[in-house]
């Protein structure tokens, strides 16, 4: 797969295309230019390192939305085995923007639930751009309750621009569906490990993101509203999205500093989309460590710790009432 480059990667893109040309020339050239290619490849890696070393939050949100970024089903095939997809909310429909089912993680049965985006136009529409409707949250909840019944840990993968803002979604109780998940996940009697793999967009993300461990991939984002949405409300102009991204604090680094997430999972050089297999390896290791924490932990402790975590969210001060 040919890497597609983002605007701020122009210098890397230029260099890569030069390398590509040289490789092409090498094929029918008598002169050996492999040294030159190697030199340029090193230079490209160095350049990528430099560019990625100082990404702005807005640039990171572009990487998080990269069209080649690995999605839930990619991780399912790279990290898990024996995936048995389970469909439907048993009430209305099967939402394709959320996938889920039973799978084995290092041989251990688990429940996997995640948002799913599409790659090409057709699939994007099929997946509704990763924006779930109420039946998606209800399917997710049904699978979580199933996991609870059989004592299976739940692993969720978050990657959505947000809940679908459509007439039908409202008619079928979008608000209730999200709220119900928040309520039920607060007291689900099995460990829930949450990973933000791309875009953690608002309520649509949170509806499967209440858990015992919340980790983020290095270039994923997690926010209460998209930078564009925030900019158009507060600045009255979507053009101010970079400023909004900066001030809202949407990156893994910032959220870790604020104590809102537990861990950052590092991505391969140039982002997860450059090397799906390496990304999956890094994520697998992190999931393994996360899961180990709950080995033999009594359910009461699990729930008490989760409750404490939930109650701990927020920054305020206390002062004497006058």
């Amino acid at each position, binding site marked *: 797969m040919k890497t597609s480059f983002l605007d701020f990667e122009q210098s890397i893109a230029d260099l890569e295309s030069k390398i590509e040309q040289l490789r092409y020339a090498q094929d029918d050239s008598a002169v050996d230019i492999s040294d030159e290619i190697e030199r340029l490849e090193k230079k490209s890696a160095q350049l990528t390192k430099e560019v990625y070393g100082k990404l702005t939050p807005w640039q990171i949100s572009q990487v998080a939305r990269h069209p080649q970024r690995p999605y839930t089903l990619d991780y399912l095939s790279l990290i898990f085995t024996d995936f048995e997809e389970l469909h439907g909310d048993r009430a209305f429909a099967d939402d394709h923007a959320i996938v889920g089912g039973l799978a084995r993680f290092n041989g251990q049965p688990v429940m996997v639930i995640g948002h799913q985006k599409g790659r090409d136009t057709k699939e994007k529409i099929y997946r509704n751009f990763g924006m779930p409707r109420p039946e998606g949250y209800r399917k997710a909840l049904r699978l979580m309750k199933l996991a609870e019944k059989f004592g299976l840990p739940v692993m969720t993968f978050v990657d959505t621009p947000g809940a679908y803002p459509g007439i039908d979604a409202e008619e079928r109780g979008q608000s209730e569906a999200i*709220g119900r998940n928040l309520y039920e996940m607060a007291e689900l009697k099995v460990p829930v490990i949450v990973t933000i793999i791309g875009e953690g967009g608002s309520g649509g993300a949170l509806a499967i993101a209440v858990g015992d461990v919340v980790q983020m991939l290095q270039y994923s984002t997690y926010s209460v509203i998209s930078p564009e949405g925030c900019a158009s409300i507060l600045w009255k102009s979507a053009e101010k999205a970079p400023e909004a991204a900066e001030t809202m604090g949407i990156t893994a680094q910032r959220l870790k500093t604020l104590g809102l997430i537990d861990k950052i999972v590092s991505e391969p050089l140039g982002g997860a989309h450059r090397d799906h297999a390496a990304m999956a390896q890094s994520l697998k290791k992190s999931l393994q460590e996360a899961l180990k924490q709950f080995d033999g932990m009594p359910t009461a402790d699990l729930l008490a710790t989760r409750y404490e975590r939930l109650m701990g969210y927020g920054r*305020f001060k206390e002062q004497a009432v006058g």
Partner: protein
Amino acid sequence: MSWLTKLLPPKIKREQGVQRRASLPEGLWSKCPSCEAVLYMTDLENNQQVCPKCGHHNRLGSRQRLDLLLDGEGRFEIGAEVVPVDSLKFKDSRKYPDRLMEANQSTGESDSLIVLQGAIKTLPVVAAAFEFDFMGGSMGSVLGERFVRGVQVAVEQKMPFICITASGGARMQEGLFSLMQMAKTTAALTKLSEAGLPFISILTDPTMGGVSASFAFVGDVVIAEPNALIGFAGPRVIEQTVREKLPEGFQRSEFLLDKGAIDMIVDRRDLRDQVARVLALLQKLPAAA
């Protein structure tokens, strides 16, 4: 000032205890924004800011709401000591602390939720009400904490918890902290359920976004005021996304009742009685005389 207002003695111009709403014109007369009937202010106040001609429910401040819902005696405020901080140093066209200060000056409140322990017709409850005029009733860390403290008191004192919402959603100026309040507030309600205590959720105009999509709809009984705008995504956002005209009455209380999203629509003037009846039934108490 009109000649009519000038003629009036100051006492009549302002009823004590009732804050004047920015949405209502000043003076003795008021025009209903819905039916455009010209109303005598006293009539409107006697009708709890509901238009006596067409039944239009004007917005109410949080303290007025709680005044109308709760008995006069034995009230204690919960969580007033919790006040906001600017943890992100958030700045859009203006700084967050400036917005807070302005909201504080215009409402007299330090954040957008007021929680009181009190009673409805002698039945002890904890009741919370949103102050929409404080930054659009937006949900930030303070709101979440006050809500949780209210629920905790309800659990400890074995009382039902009631919340009256009026909110545009999450408070963007607190970034992800505000999103997490959805999880925090809703999680607290699991303890209320464990204790077998009711949570009555009363939705008023407007109840949107993160407030709608968290605790608002997990009420044991969900009540809405007539014609209130209630939903997750705002109507304009939906219109832009689907590029079609929204159906008549979309996201209004009557629409939600029809879709099965809420239990009942209650006129504000009957709300106190109705809540008391529902609570008595849920708690297996004798019917009030």
